[in-house]
């Protein structure tokens, strides 16, 4: 599972359906499935990660699989290439490899080096497919679209540093494939016109967050990734943060999402993130996203290992 762009809507819906079945198990550690008993999942994280690695680990454990972690292995510091690290891990006899890297396309590079199924745990600014899936599931669940996972007529605003966001790339691909209309919202440097390449004909780029918020059924906030070179103007928070005041303009029943990690007080206010400051039935899904994440990764691991279908879309 390397990316959601180009994955068929049928495959997406199969994975989301599987996520629903996993969800009951995902919340209760004692209730372990035996689907992947005796199998081993390797996590190879070349970039720091807390929730994604933990989420994949829990997911594997709840399917009965063993987990071995090669993260922060100092082989690369000794000059070993990503491809050789993956070959080395494969040679030890693992059944799946979850790769996280700061390099766009690293998971594709890893998959080319091994016969073992590779799951992309986030590669640079390219894709983060399990995050895209969990965002789609969480949204469907919140607005009552679990039956068929059809997001037709739903408008989603993705706001902030879209340029550097693998979450936005995977999310836009999945949401549009399921029928949603996506608006990318942010200043020119973070949402350049070329980002139109991520959108279908219905999608659009919007500079005015206040205009977009009045139309959106869901608002997905993104952190500004200063570590990847993003720079913002002093007016950024004023124009593009989901402040408590701006959140009052959310449509009735609209939902707020954030893939984390959040910079509370920067792109989102605390009362918005925890939902306490929201009105008119608007809800925050931030913690629900995290919970769903484990179930999504169970579904993804079973998809890659359980013979449900080919790993690579």
């Amino acid at each position, binding site marked *: 599972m390397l990316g959601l762009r180009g994955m068929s809507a049928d495959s997406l819906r199969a994975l989301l359906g599987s996520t629903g079945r996993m969800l009951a198990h995902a919340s209760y550690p004692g209730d372990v499935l035996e689907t992947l008993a005796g199998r081993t999942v390797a996590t190879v994280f070349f970039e720091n990660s807390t929730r994604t690695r933990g989420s994949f680990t829990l997911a594997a454990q709840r399917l009965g699989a063993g987990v071995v972690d090669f993260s922060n292995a100092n082989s690369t510091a000794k000059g070993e*290439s990503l491809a050789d690290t993956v070959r080395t891990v494969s040679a030890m006899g693992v059944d799946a490899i979850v790769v996280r*890297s700061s390099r766009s*396309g690293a998971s594709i590079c890893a998959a080319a080096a091994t016969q073992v199924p590779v799951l992309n745990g986030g590669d*640079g600014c390219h894709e983060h497919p399990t995050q895209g899936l969990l965002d789609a599931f969480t949204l469907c669940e919140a607005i009552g679209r679990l039956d068929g996972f059809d997001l037709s007529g739903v408008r989603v605003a993705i706001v902030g540093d879209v340029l550097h966001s693998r979450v936005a*790339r995977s999310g836009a691909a999945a949401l549009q494939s399921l029928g949603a209309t996506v608006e990318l919202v942010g200043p020119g440097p973070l949402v350049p016109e*070329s980002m139109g*390449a*991520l959108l279908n004909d219905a999608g659009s780029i919007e500079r005015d967050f206040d205009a977009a918020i009045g139309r959106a059924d869901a608002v997905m906030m993104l952190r500004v990734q200063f570590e990847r*070179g993003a720079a913002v103007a002093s007016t950024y928070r004023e124009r593009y943060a989901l402040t408590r005041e701006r959140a009052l303009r959310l449509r009735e029943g609209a939902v707020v999402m954030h893939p984390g990690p959040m910079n509370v007080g920067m792109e989102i206010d605390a009362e918005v993130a925890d939902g306490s400051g929201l009105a008119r039935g608007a809800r925050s899904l931030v913690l629900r996203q995290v919970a769903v994440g484990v179930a999504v990764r169970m579904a993804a691991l079973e998809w890659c290992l359980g013979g449900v279908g080919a790993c690579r879309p």
Partner: protein
Amino acid sequence: MPHHASPAIPLLIKGGRLIDPATGTDATLDVAIGADGRVDAIGPDLPELPDGRTIDASGLIVAPGLIDPHVHLREPGGEHKETIRSGTAAALAGGFTTVCCMPNTTPALDSPRVLADLAERCQRTAQCRVYPVAAGSIGRKGEQPAPIQALAAGGAVGISDDGDAIADPALMAHVLAQTAKANLAFMQHCQDPTITVGSSMHDGEVSTRLGLVGWPRHAEEVIIERDIALVEQTGCSYHVQHISSAGSVELVRAARARGLPVTAEASPHHLMLTHEACEGFNTLAKMNPPLREQSDVESIRQAVVEGVITVLATDHAPHAKHEKEQPFEDAPFGIIGLETALPLYAEALVHTGLIDWPRLIALLTVEPARLCRLERLGLGQLALGGPADITLIDADHRWTFEESQVAGRSANSPFLGRTMVGRAVASIVAGAERMDRLVAAR
């Protein structure tokens, strides 16, 4: 620079279509080559040579040996990618009898001592003629000027920091003045390093989808624009390497129209491919400068037609498999080019009807010879008494480029598996057949 010498026997090349753009020749003519490796006679129906060999060239193009003015041989310092021996074998396989090697070796070609070492290596192992392009700055660092007069005296046929532009305008002005004084051309790798920090492919829809930092056209154009102003000051011959954007073409066109000594080269990949080739993080399509859009390809092709671009050059850049299998951002730039250049040029320019074979041969012989000051050695043309460097071309030969047949040490090419039309079938250096697939081709 002398190539690896070998004894020649008299050779008669009979019945071919002799194309020599230097003299405007395009006719069925025979070429007789003496045991001294020089052209003895050119004419119709020449008699067989006693104690000599005859090549039946009917149906073939007989051209002056092809010259590639932009090749990376990697030796010294990068022998796991290519050596002088393997790189010159690749040249011969592609029909090139002369290559000009770029200075980005380790150490860089920035002193007469390093040039002398290179000459000695070539004497031992080069399979074709090799002439060095020397660095414009010490270590190609863009800080201190290299001793350009001494480098010219030591055999340099051009000056370049290829792989990097000389970004400092004051240093560039000094280097251009020194290069002009040495009567050489400065060959610029046009890339403003401050614009391309972290960039690995063309700035456009594909880079956006893949999440890669874009490399805008103006990273090339601002350097060309600045350099043209410096050329006006210094009068130095200035050559734009591997031109990649339509805007760059316009700048060169305008400079030439004003009578400035500005030339430009096009590479096979910039004539054939777009950024779409990078889809799927294909590192075999990672180039510097990057592959751009179809409109750029069309502009570059049109510039060849109009004579704005006068030289074709491969930028042959071998890299080992393990280097190219890294994530896209970490993989090195460049592809091999020598063995596929001729059919790709033909596909882009001749099969499309844009130019004819005589013009293509000119872009590969007399024009690069002029750029690299090789005319004075009689290269790039077939003159009586001149060196008998000859390439025989079967313009109709259909073949598929397979990794197993790569003559060089590296096989980093996006054209692997591609079926092409047209191929060099023999490469003759100083009268000696150094590459011959005449039997196989017929």
